[in-house]
Protein backbone atom coordinates (compact mmCIF):
# COMPACT_ATOMS: atom_id res chain seq x y z
CA UNK A 1 0.00 0.00 0.00
CA UNK A 2 2.72 2.47 0.95
CA UNK A 3 4.77 1.38 -2.02
CA UNK A 4 1.94 2.37 -4.33
CA UNK A 5 1.76 5.81 -2.76
CA UNK A 6 5.34 6.81 -3.49
CA UNK A 7 5.07 7.34 -7.26
CA UNK A 8 1.86 9.27 -6.73
CA UNK A 9 3.50 11.59 -4.22
CA UNK A 10 6.45 12.01 -6.54
CA UNK A 11 4.22 13.03 -9.42
CA UNK A 12 2.21 15.48 -7.33
CA UNK A 13 5.07 17.01 -5.36
CA UNK A 14 6.40 19.31 -8.13
CA UNK A 15 2.95 20.78 -8.64
CA UNK A 16 2.52 21.34 -4.94
CA UNK A 17 5.87 23.14 -4.79
CA UNK A 18 5.04 25.32 -7.79
CA UNK A 19 1.58 26.00 -6.34
CA UNK A 20 3.09 27.16 -3.05
CA UNK A 21 5.57 29.40 -4.85
CA UNK A 22 2.78 30.83 -6.97
CA UNK A 23 0.65 31.48 -3.93
CA UNK A 24 3.52 33.16 -2.10
CA UNK A 25 4.15 35.40 -5.09
CA UNK A 26 0.45 36.24 -5.38
CA UNK A 27 0.28 37.26 -1.73
CA UNK A 28 3.66 38.97 -1.34
CA UNK A 29 4.60 39.95 -4.89
CA UNK A 30 4.23 43.35 -6.54
CA UNK A 31 1.13 42.44 -8.60
CA UNK A 32 -2.40 43.24 -7.44
CA UNK A 33 -4.61 40.10 -7.13
CA UNK A 34 -6.51 41.14 -10.26
CA UNK A 35 -3.35 40.60 -12.32
CA UNK A 36 -1.87 37.72 -10.36
CA UNK A 37 -4.68 35.76 -8.73
CA UNK A 38 -4.01 33.10 -6.11
CA UNK A 39 -4.37 29.40 -6.78
CA UNK A 40 -7.75 29.23 -5.03
CA UNK A 41 -9.18 31.99 -7.26
CA UNK A 42 -7.97 30.29 -10.42
CA UNK A 43 -9.38 26.99 -9.25
CA UNK A 44 -12.78 28.37 -8.31
CA UNK A 45 -12.97 30.26 -11.62
CA UNK A 46 -12.10 27.04 -13.40
CA UNK A 47 -14.88 25.16 -11.61
CA UNK A 48 -17.37 27.97 -12.19
CA UNK A 49 -16.57 28.18 -15.92
CA UNK A 50 -16.81 24.42 -16.33
CA UNK A 51 -20.10 24.25 -14.40
CA UNK A 52 -21.61 27.01 -16.51
CA UNK A 53 -20.54 25.16 -19.64
CA UNK A 54 -18.41 28.07 -20.84
CA UNK A 55 -15.06 26.30 -20.88
CA UNK A 56 -16.44 23.09 -22.45
CA UNK A 57 -18.10 24.91 -25.32
CA UNK A 58 -15.00 26.97 -26.08
CA UNK A 59 -12.82 23.88 -25.86
CA UNK A 60 -15.18 21.93 -28.10
CA UNK A 61 -15.19 24.53 -30.84
CA UNK A 62 -11.41 24.76 -30.69
CA UNK A 63 -11.16 20.98 -30.97
CA UNK A 64 -13.58 20.91 -33.88
CA UNK A 65 -11.48 23.48 -35.72
CA UNK A 66 -8.35 21.49 -34.91
CA UNK A 67 -9.81 18.24 -36.25
CA UNK A 68 -11.01 19.90 -39.42
CA UNK A 69 -7.73 21.67 -40.10
CA UNK A 70 -5.60 18.67 -39.20
CA UNK A 71 -7.59 16.27 -41.39
CA UNK A 72 -7.21 18.67 -44.28
CA UNK A 73 -3.46 19.01 -43.67
CA UNK A 74 -3.04 15.26 -43.17
CA UNK A 75 -4.85 14.28 -46.38
CA UNK A 76 -3.23 16.84 -48.62
CA UNK A 77 0.16 16.65 -46.92
CA UNK A 78 0.53 12.88 -47.11
CA UNK A 79 -0.71 12.87 -50.71
CA UNK A 80 1.75 15.57 -51.76
CA UNK A 81 4.60 13.93 -49.85
CA UNK A 82 3.97 10.60 -51.57
CA UNK A 83 3.80 12.23 -54.99
CA UNK A 84 7.08 14.00 -54.24
CA UNK A 85 8.67 10.74 -53.16
CA UNK A 86 7.52 8.88 -56.25
CA UNK A 87 7.96 11.39 -59.08
CA UNK A 88 11.11 13.31 -59.85
CA UNK A 89 9.39 16.34 -61.35
CA UNK A 90 7.20 16.79 -58.27
CA UNK A 91 10.22 16.55 -56.02
CA UNK A 92 12.17 19.04 -58.10
CA UNK A 93 9.32 21.53 -58.00
CA UNK A 94 7.89 21.18 -54.50
CA UNK A 95 10.90 20.31 -52.36
CA UNK A 96 12.59 23.74 -52.55
CA UNK A 97 9.27 25.47 -51.96
CA UNK A 98 8.38 23.41 -48.90
CA UNK A 99 11.91 23.65 -47.50
CA UNK A 100 11.82 27.44 -47.81
CA UNK A 101 8.26 27.70 -46.54
CA UNK A 102 8.78 25.38 -43.57
CA UNK A 103 10.76 27.75 -41.31
CA UNK A 104 8.40 30.70 -41.89
CA UNK A 105 6.03 30.88 -38.91
CA UNK A 106 2.55 29.97 -40.15
CA UNK A 107 1.14 32.69 -37.98
CA UNK A 108 2.90 35.34 -40.06
CA UNK A 109 0.40 34.62 -42.82
CA UNK A 110 -2.56 35.28 -40.52
CA UNK A 111 -3.21 38.89 -41.59
CA UNK A 112 -2.91 37.85 -45.21
CA UNK A 113 -5.43 35.06 -44.77
CA UNK A 114 -7.78 37.44 -42.97
CA UNK A 115 -7.59 39.82 -45.92
CA UNK A 116 -8.22 37.01 -48.38
CA UNK A 117 -10.87 35.02 -46.57
CA UNK A 118 -12.37 37.48 -44.09
CA UNK A 119 -12.64 36.97 -40.36
CA UNK A 120 -13.97 33.85 -38.64
CA UNK A 121 -13.66 30.14 -39.15
CA UNK A 122 -12.59 29.86 -42.77
CA UNK A 123 -9.23 31.69 -42.51
CA UNK A 124 -8.56 30.06 -39.13
CA UNK A 125 -9.00 26.51 -40.42
CA UNK A 126 -7.18 27.18 -43.70
CA UNK A 127 -4.23 28.83 -41.99
CA UNK A 128 -3.86 26.09 -39.41
CA UNK A 129 -4.04 23.43 -42.13
CA UNK A 130 -1.47 25.33 -44.17
CA UNK A 131 0.95 25.60 -41.25
CA UNK A 132 0.50 21.96 -40.23
CA UNK A 133 0.99 20.62 -43.75
CA UNK A 134 4.71 21.44 -43.97
CA UNK A 135 6.12 18.87 -41.52
CA UNK A 136 3.67 16.29 -42.88
CA UNK A 137 4.81 16.80 -46.48
CA UNK A 138 8.51 16.81 -45.64
CA UNK A 139 8.37 13.74 -43.42
CA UNK A 140 6.21 11.73 -45.80
CA UNK A 141 8.60 12.54 -48.61
CA UNK A 142 11.58 11.48 -46.49
CA UNK A 143 9.76 8.28 -45.55
CA UNK A 144 9.03 7.28 -49.14
CA UNK A 145 12.66 8.00 -49.99
CA UNK A 146 13.90 6.01 -47.00
CA UNK A 147 12.05 2.78 -47.77
CA UNK A 148 14.80 0.16 -47.72
CA UNK A 149 16.01 -0.92 -51.13
CA UNK A 150 16.21 -4.49 -49.88
CA UNK A 151 12.45 -4.59 -49.14
CA UNK A 152 11.72 -3.42 -52.67
CA UNK A 153 14.07 -6.02 -54.13
CA UNK A 154 12.67 -8.80 -51.99
CA UNK A 155 9.12 -7.87 -52.99
CA UNK A 156 10.07 -7.65 -56.66
CA UNK A 157 11.76 -11.02 -56.47
CA UNK A 158 8.44 -12.37 -55.17
CA UNK A 159 6.63 -10.91 -58.15
CA UNK A 160 5.20 -7.65 -56.76
CA UNK A 161 4.01 -5.24 -59.47
CA UNK A 162 4.17 -1.43 -59.16
CA UNK A 163 0.76 -1.10 -57.50
CA UNK A 164 1.35 -3.91 -55.04
CA UNK A 165 4.81 -2.56 -54.35
CA UNK A 166 3.29 0.76 -53.45
CA UNK A 167 0.48 -0.48 -51.21
CA UNK A 168 2.24 -3.39 -49.55
CA UNK A 169 5.83 -2.17 -49.26
CA UNK A 170 6.32 1.56 -49.83
CA UNK A 171 3.38 2.70 -47.73
CA UNK A 172 3.96 0.54 -44.64
CA UNK A 173 7.72 1.08 -44.98
CA UNK A 174 7.29 4.84 -44.97
CA UNK A 175 4.81 4.75 -42.09
CA UNK A 176 7.26 5.58 -39.27
CA UNK A 177 8.09 8.85 -40.99
CA UNK A 178 4.50 9.57 -41.94
CA UNK A 179 3.44 9.15 -38.32
CA UNK A 180 6.26 11.40 -37.14
CA UNK A 181 5.12 13.97 -39.66
CA UNK A 182 1.51 13.74 -38.53
CA UNK A 183 2.58 14.07 -34.94
CA UNK A 184 4.67 17.16 -35.65
CA UNK A 185 1.86 18.52 -37.81
CA UNK A 186 -0.70 18.07 -35.04
CA UNK A 187 1.57 19.75 -32.50
CA UNK A 188 2.13 22.64 -34.86
CA UNK A 189 -1.58 22.89 -35.66
CA UNK A 190 -2.35 23.07 -31.96
CA UNK A 191 0.19 25.83 -31.31
CA UNK A 192 -0.89 27.90 -34.28
CA UNK A 193 -4.60 27.42 -33.70
CA UNK A 194 -4.70 29.07 -30.29
CA UNK A 195 -2.95 32.15 -31.64
CA UNK A 196 -5.00 32.22 -34.82
CA UNK A 197 -8.19 32.29 -32.79
CA UNK A 198 -6.95 35.48 -31.18
CA UNK A 199 -6.24 37.10 -34.53
CA UNK A 200 -9.24 36.05 -36.64
CA UNK A 201 -11.92 36.89 -34.09
CA UNK A 202 -13.80 33.61 -34.10
CA UNK A 203 -16.88 33.65 -31.86
CA UNK A 204 -15.97 30.63 -29.73
CA UNK A 205 -12.61 29.12 -28.95
CA UNK A 206 -10.06 28.88 -26.16
CA UNK A 207 -7.72 31.37 -27.81
CA UNK A 208 -10.52 33.87 -28.14
CA UNK A 209 -11.63 33.26 -24.55
CA UNK A 210 -8.18 34.13 -23.26
CA UNK A 211 -7.79 37.10 -25.55
CA UNK A 212 -11.23 38.45 -24.76
CA UNK A 213 -10.63 38.16 -21.01
CA UNK A 214 -7.79 40.65 -21.37
CA UNK A 215 -10.25 43.50 -21.94
CA UNK A 216 -11.70 43.03 -18.48
CA UNK A 217 -8.44 42.14 -16.73
CA UNK A 218 -9.86 38.68 -15.96
CA UNK A 219 -6.52 37.05 -15.36
CA UNK A 220 -8.17 34.14 -13.54
CA UNK A 221 -10.25 33.32 -16.65
CA UNK A 222 -7.13 33.49 -18.81
CA UNK A 223 -5.22 31.12 -16.58
CA UNK A 224 -8.16 28.71 -16.39
CA UNK A 225 -8.24 28.78 -20.19
CA UNK A 226 -4.51 28.10 -20.37
CA UNK A 227 -4.95 25.15 -18.02
CA UNK A 228 -7.53 23.63 -20.38
CA UNK A 229 -5.25 24.28 -23.33
CA UNK A 230 -2.41 22.47 -21.58
CA UNK A 231 -4.69 19.59 -20.66
CA UNK A 232 -6.01 19.14 -24.20
CA UNK A 233 -2.50 19.28 -25.66
CA UNK A 234 -1.28 16.74 -23.16
CA UNK A 235 -4.18 14.37 -23.87
CA UNK A 236 -3.77 14.67 -27.64
CA UNK A 237 -0.16 13.57 -27.32
CA UNK A 238 -0.77 10.77 -24.82
CA UNK A 239 -4.04 9.33 -26.05
CA UNK A 240 -3.90 9.76 -29.79
CA UNK A 241 -0.33 9.41 -30.92
CA UNK A 242 1.29 7.22 -28.33
CA UNK A 243 -1.57 4.73 -28.77
CA UNK A 244 -1.21 4.76 -32.52
CA UNK A 245 2.52 4.21 -32.33
CA UNK A 246 2.07 1.44 -29.82
CA UNK A 247 -0.31 -0.33 -32.19
CA UNK A 248 1.92 -0.13 -35.24
CA UNK A 249 5.55 0.85 -35.01
CA UNK A 250 6.39 -0.53 -31.59
CA UNK A 251 4.57 -3.75 -32.43
CA UNK A 252 6.61 -4.07 -35.63
CA UNK A 253 9.85 -3.24 -33.87
CA UNK A 254 10.42 -0.26 -36.17
CA UNK A 255 10.60 1.98 -33.13
CA UNK A 256 11.53 1.42 -29.52
CA UNK A 257 8.79 1.72 -26.95
Amino acid sequence: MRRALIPFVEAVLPFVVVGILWQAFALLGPFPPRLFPGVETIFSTFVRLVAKGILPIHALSTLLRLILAFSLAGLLGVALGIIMGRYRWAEDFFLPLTSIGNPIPGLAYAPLFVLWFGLGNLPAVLLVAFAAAFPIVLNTWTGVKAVKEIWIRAAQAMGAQDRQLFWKVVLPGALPYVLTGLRLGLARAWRVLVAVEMLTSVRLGLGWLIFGAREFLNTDVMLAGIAVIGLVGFLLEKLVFQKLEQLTLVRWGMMEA
Partner: protein
Amino acid sequence: MNRSRTRAALGALCSVGLACLIWEGFARSGLFAPALAPSLTLIVSALGRMVLSGAMLWHALYTLYRVLFGFVLASAVGVFIGILMGRFRRVERFFVPLVSVLMPIPSLAWVPVFILWFGLGNAATIALVFYAATFPAIFNTWTGVRSVNRLWIRSAEAMGADERALFQKVVLPGSLPFVIAGLRQAFARAWIAVVGGEMIAATNWGLGWVIFDSKEFLNTDVMMASLAVIGIIGFTFERLIFQTIEQRTVSRWGMVKTVRG
Protein backbone atom coordinates in the same frame (compact mmCIF):
# COMPACT_ATOMS: atom_id res chain seq x y z
CA MET B 1 29.86 16.51 -54.74
CA ASN B 2 30.19 20.22 -55.47
CA ARG B 3 28.63 19.85 -58.86
CA SER B 4 25.57 18.15 -57.43
CA ARG B 5 25.18 20.98 -54.90
CA THR B 6 25.24 23.65 -57.57
CA ARG B 7 22.73 21.60 -59.53
CA ALA B 8 20.44 21.40 -56.51
CA ALA B 9 20.71 25.14 -55.98
CA LEU B 10 19.95 25.73 -59.64
CA GLY B 11 16.94 23.42 -59.44
CA ALA B 12 15.69 25.27 -56.37
CA LEU B 13 16.08 28.55 -58.21
CA CYS B 14 14.10 27.19 -61.16
CA SER B 15 11.25 25.96 -59.00
CA VAL B 16 11.09 29.23 -57.05
CA GLY B 17 11.13 31.08 -60.37
CA LEU B 18 8.30 28.94 -61.66
CA ALA B 19 6.28 29.51 -58.48
CA CYS B 20 6.84 33.27 -58.85
CA LEU B 21 5.62 33.11 -62.44
CA ILE B 22 2.46 31.30 -61.35
CA TRP B 23 1.87 33.91 -58.66
CA GLU B 24 2.43 36.73 -61.15
CA GLY B 25 -0.08 35.19 -63.55
CA PHE B 26 -2.55 34.82 -60.71
CA ALA B 27 -1.98 38.39 -59.47
CA ARG B 28 -2.42 39.90 -62.91
CA SER B 29 -5.40 37.75 -63.86
CA GLY B 30 -7.69 40.13 -61.99
CA LEU B 31 -9.39 37.39 -59.96
CA PHE B 32 -8.39 39.22 -56.80
CA ALA B 33 -8.09 42.97 -56.44
CA PRO B 34 -4.45 44.13 -56.69
CA ALA B 35 -4.75 45.35 -53.10
CA LEU B 36 -5.28 41.73 -52.03
CA ALA B 37 -2.91 39.96 -54.41
CA PRO B 38 -0.12 42.38 -55.35
CA SER B 39 2.12 41.51 -58.25
CA LEU B 40 5.79 40.79 -57.74
CA THR B 41 6.82 44.22 -58.97
CA LEU B 42 4.71 45.84 -56.26
CA ILE B 43 6.11 43.55 -53.57
CA VAL B 44 9.70 44.10 -54.66
CA SER B 45 9.25 47.87 -54.85
CA ALA B 46 7.68 47.90 -51.37
CA LEU B 47 10.62 45.90 -50.10
CA GLY B 48 13.09 48.25 -51.81
CA ARG B 49 11.33 51.34 -50.45
CA MET B 50 11.39 49.98 -46.90
CA VAL B 51 14.99 48.85 -47.10
CA LEU B 52 16.13 52.21 -48.50
CA SER B 53 14.26 54.24 -45.91
CA GLY B 54 15.89 52.12 -43.23
CA ALA B 55 12.54 51.15 -41.76
CA MET B 56 12.93 47.49 -42.65
CA LEU B 57 16.34 47.39 -40.99
CA TRP B 58 14.91 48.74 -37.75
CA HIS B 59 11.98 46.34 -37.80
CA ALA B 60 14.33 43.43 -38.37
CA LEU B 61 16.73 44.62 -35.67
CA TYR B 62 13.95 44.93 -33.10
CA THR B 63 12.72 41.45 -33.93
CA LEU B 64 16.23 40.01 -33.83
CA TYR B 65 16.96 41.71 -30.52
CA ARG B 66 13.84 40.22 -28.94
CA VAL B 67 14.31 36.75 -30.36
CA LEU B 68 18.01 36.50 -29.56
CA PHE B 69 17.63 37.91 -26.04
CA GLY B 70 14.92 35.37 -25.23
CA PHE B 71 16.63 32.53 -27.06
CA VAL B 72 20.04 32.97 -25.41
CA LEU B 73 18.44 33.20 -21.99
CA ALA B 74 16.29 30.14 -22.70
CA SER B 75 19.26 28.14 -24.03
CA ALA B 76 21.34 28.83 -20.96
CA VAL B 77 18.54 27.97 -18.54
CA GLY B 78 17.26 25.05 -20.62
CA VAL B 79 20.61 23.35 -21.14
CA PHE B 80 21.49 23.85 -17.48
CA ILE B 81 18.25 22.30 -16.22
CA GLY B 82 18.44 19.57 -18.85
CA ILE B 83 21.92 18.52 -17.74
CA LEU B 84 20.93 18.52 -14.07
CA MET B 85 17.92 16.38 -14.95
CA GLY B 86 20.07 13.95 -16.86
CA ARG B 87 22.62 13.65 -14.05
CA PHE B 88 20.52 13.65 -10.88
CA ARG B 89 17.49 11.46 -10.30
CA ARG B 90 15.91 13.87 -7.83
CA VAL B 91 16.03 16.80 -10.24
CA GLU B 92 14.68 14.59 -12.97
CA ARG B 93 11.74 13.44 -10.85
CA PHE B 94 10.90 17.00 -9.96
CA PHE B 95 11.03 18.53 -13.43
CA VAL B 96 9.67 15.79 -15.69
CA PRO B 97 6.01 16.21 -14.64
CA LEU B 98 6.25 19.99 -14.89
CA VAL B 99 7.87 19.94 -18.31
CA SER B 100 5.42 17.43 -19.71
CA VAL B 101 2.48 19.55 -18.57
CA LEU B 102 3.87 22.94 -19.60
CA MET B 103 5.41 21.91 -22.92
CA PRO B 104 2.14 21.26 -24.81
CA ILE B 105 0.78 24.71 -23.93
CA PRO B 106 1.32 26.88 -27.00
CA SER B 107 3.48 29.81 -25.98
CA LEU B 108 1.14 32.25 -27.68
CA ALA B 109 -1.63 31.32 -25.27
CA TRP B 110 0.36 33.25 -22.67
CA VAL B 111 0.47 36.49 -24.69
CA PRO B 112 -2.58 38.12 -23.08
CA VAL B 113 -1.34 37.19 -19.62
CA PHE B 114 2.16 38.45 -20.33
CA ILE B 115 0.75 41.71 -21.69
CA LEU B 116 -1.07 42.21 -18.41
CA TRP B 117 2.02 41.40 -16.39
CA PHE B 118 4.72 43.12 -18.41
CA GLY B 119 2.79 45.64 -20.49
CA LEU B 120 2.97 46.00 -24.27
CA GLY B 121 6.46 46.00 -25.76
CA ASN B 122 9.80 44.30 -25.41
CA ALA B 123 9.46 42.62 -22.02
CA ALA B 124 6.28 40.72 -22.91
CA THR B 125 7.70 39.54 -26.22
CA ILE B 126 11.01 38.46 -24.71
CA ALA B 127 9.22 36.58 -21.94
CA LEU B 128 7.16 34.86 -24.62
CA VAL B 129 10.24 33.87 -26.63
CA PHE B 130 11.84 32.59 -23.45
CA TYR B 131 8.81 30.45 -22.63
CA ALA B 132 8.67 29.05 -26.17
CA ALA B 133 12.37 28.17 -26.40
CA THR B 134 13.08 26.83 -22.91
CA PHE B 135 11.18 23.57 -23.12
CA PRO B 136 12.71 22.14 -26.31
CA ALA B 137 16.15 23.02 -24.92
CA ILE B 138 15.42 21.27 -21.60
CA PHE B 139 13.80 18.25 -23.15
CA ASN B 140 16.47 17.54 -25.75
CA THR B 141 19.40 18.14 -23.43
CA TRP B 142 17.88 15.77 -20.88
CA THR B 143 17.35 13.09 -23.55
CA GLY B 144 20.90 13.64 -24.80
CA VAL B 145 22.56 13.22 -21.41
CA ARG B 146 20.57 10.07 -20.73
CA SER B 147 21.39 8.55 -24.10
CA VAL B 148 25.15 8.87 -23.78
CA ASN B 149 26.46 5.44 -24.66
CA ARG B 150 27.22 3.44 -21.50
CA LEU B 151 30.23 1.89 -23.17
CA TRP B 152 31.89 5.29 -23.52
CA ILE B 153 31.35 5.98 -19.84
CA ARG B 154 32.72 2.58 -18.82
CA SER B 155 35.78 2.85 -21.01
CA ALA B 156 36.47 6.39 -19.80
CA GLU B 157 36.18 5.16 -16.23
CA ALA B 158 38.49 2.27 -17.02
CA MET B 159 41.00 4.80 -18.34
CA GLY B 160 40.85 6.64 -15.03
CA ALA B 161 38.44 9.51 -15.71
CA ASP B 162 37.05 11.09 -12.55
CA GLU B 163 33.53 12.51 -12.21
CA ARG B 164 34.56 15.90 -13.56
CA ALA B 165 36.50 14.61 -16.54
CA LEU B 166 33.72 12.15 -17.27
CA PHE B 167 31.26 14.99 -17.46
CA GLN B 168 33.38 17.39 -19.48
CA LYS B 169 35.00 14.94 -21.84
CA VAL B 170 32.37 12.26 -22.32
CA VAL B 171 28.87 13.28 -21.24
CA LEU B 172 28.96 16.75 -22.72
CA PRO B 173 30.33 15.91 -26.18
CA GLY B 174 28.31 12.68 -26.19
CA SER B 175 25.04 14.51 -25.74
CA LEU B 176 25.95 17.32 -28.12
CA PRO B 177 23.91 16.03 -31.08
CA PHE B 178 20.78 16.22 -28.97
CA VAL B 179 21.67 19.59 -27.48
CA ILE B 180 22.23 21.07 -30.93
CA ALA B 181 19.02 19.54 -32.23
CA GLY B 182 17.27 20.97 -29.18
CA LEU B 183 18.62 24.46 -29.72
CA ARG B 184 17.65 24.28 -33.35
CA GLN B 185 14.13 23.35 -32.41
CA ALA B 186 14.15 26.00 -29.69
CA PHE B 187 15.08 28.66 -32.20
CA ALA B 188 12.33 27.57 -34.57
CA ARG B 189 9.83 27.89 -31.71
CA ALA B 190 11.32 31.21 -30.66
CA TRP B 191 11.01 32.55 -34.17
CA ILE B 192 7.34 31.63 -34.33
CA ALA B 193 6.77 33.11 -30.88
CA VAL B 194 8.45 36.41 -31.67
CA VAL B 195 6.44 36.98 -34.84
CA GLY B 196 3.17 36.01 -33.17
CA GLY B 197 4.02 37.97 -30.04
CA GLU B 198 4.82 41.10 -32.01
CA MET B 199 1.50 40.92 -33.80
CA ILE B 200 -0.36 41.03 -30.53
CA ALA B 201 1.94 42.65 -28.03
CA ALA B 202 4.41 44.95 -29.81
CA THR B 203 4.30 48.68 -30.35
CA ASN B 204 5.56 50.38 -33.51
CA TRP B 205 8.54 48.15 -34.35
CA GLY B 206 9.15 44.55 -35.32
CA LEU B 207 8.44 42.41 -38.40
CA GLY B 208 5.35 40.81 -36.88
CA TRP B 209 3.97 44.21 -35.97
CA VAL B 210 4.48 45.53 -39.53
CA ILE B 211 2.50 42.67 -40.98
CA PHE B 212 -0.32 43.08 -38.55
CA ASP B 213 -0.34 46.84 -38.87
CA SER B 214 -0.40 46.82 -42.66
CA LYS B 215 -3.58 44.75 -42.56
CA GLU B 216 -5.42 47.82 -41.31
CA PHE B 217 -4.46 49.77 -44.40
CA LEU B 218 -4.67 46.86 -46.88
CA ASN B 219 -0.95 47.24 -47.59
CA THR B 220 -0.62 43.71 -48.89
CA ASP B 221 2.64 44.54 -50.67
CA VAL B 222 4.26 45.62 -47.38
CA MET B 223 2.91 42.46 -45.75
CA MET B 224 4.40 40.23 -48.41
CA ALA B 225 7.70 42.08 -48.29
CA SER B 226 7.90 41.58 -44.50
CA LEU B 227 6.93 37.93 -44.89
CA ALA B 228 9.84 37.53 -47.30
CA VAL B 229 12.22 39.09 -44.77
CA ILE B 230 10.88 36.83 -42.02
CA GLY B 231 11.41 33.85 -44.28
CA ILE B 232 14.93 34.89 -45.23
CA ILE B 233 16.02 35.45 -41.62
CA GLY B 234 14.45 32.18 -40.46
CA PHE B 235 16.06 30.33 -43.34
CA THR B 236 19.45 31.92 -42.60
CA PHE B 237 19.40 30.78 -39.01
CA GLU B 238 18.05 27.33 -39.75
CA ARG B 239 20.22 26.51 -42.75
CA LEU B 240 23.33 28.61 -42.50
CA ILE B 241 23.94 28.83 -38.78
CA PHE B 242 22.55 25.67 -37.20
CA GLN B 243 23.36 23.43 -40.12
CA THR B 244 26.93 24.73 -40.22
CA ILE B 245 27.37 24.15 -36.50
CA GLU B 246 26.02 20.65 -36.94
CA GLN B 247 28.31 19.90 -39.87
CA ARG B 248 31.36 21.27 -38.06
CA THR B 249 30.78 19.10 -35.01
CA VAL B 250 28.54 16.10 -34.84
CA SER B 251 28.36 15.20 -38.54
CA ARG B 252 32.14 15.27 -38.68
CA TRP B 253 32.23 12.80 -35.86
CA GLY B 254 29.79 10.67 -37.84
CA MET B 255 27.23 10.74 -35.05
CA VAL B 256 24.29 11.85 -37.14
CA LYS B 257 23.54 11.72 -40.79
CA THR B 258 22.47 15.13 -41.95
CA VAL B 259 19.09 14.73 -43.54
CA ARG B 260 18.09 17.42 -45.94
CA GLY B 261 14.60 18.86 -45.88
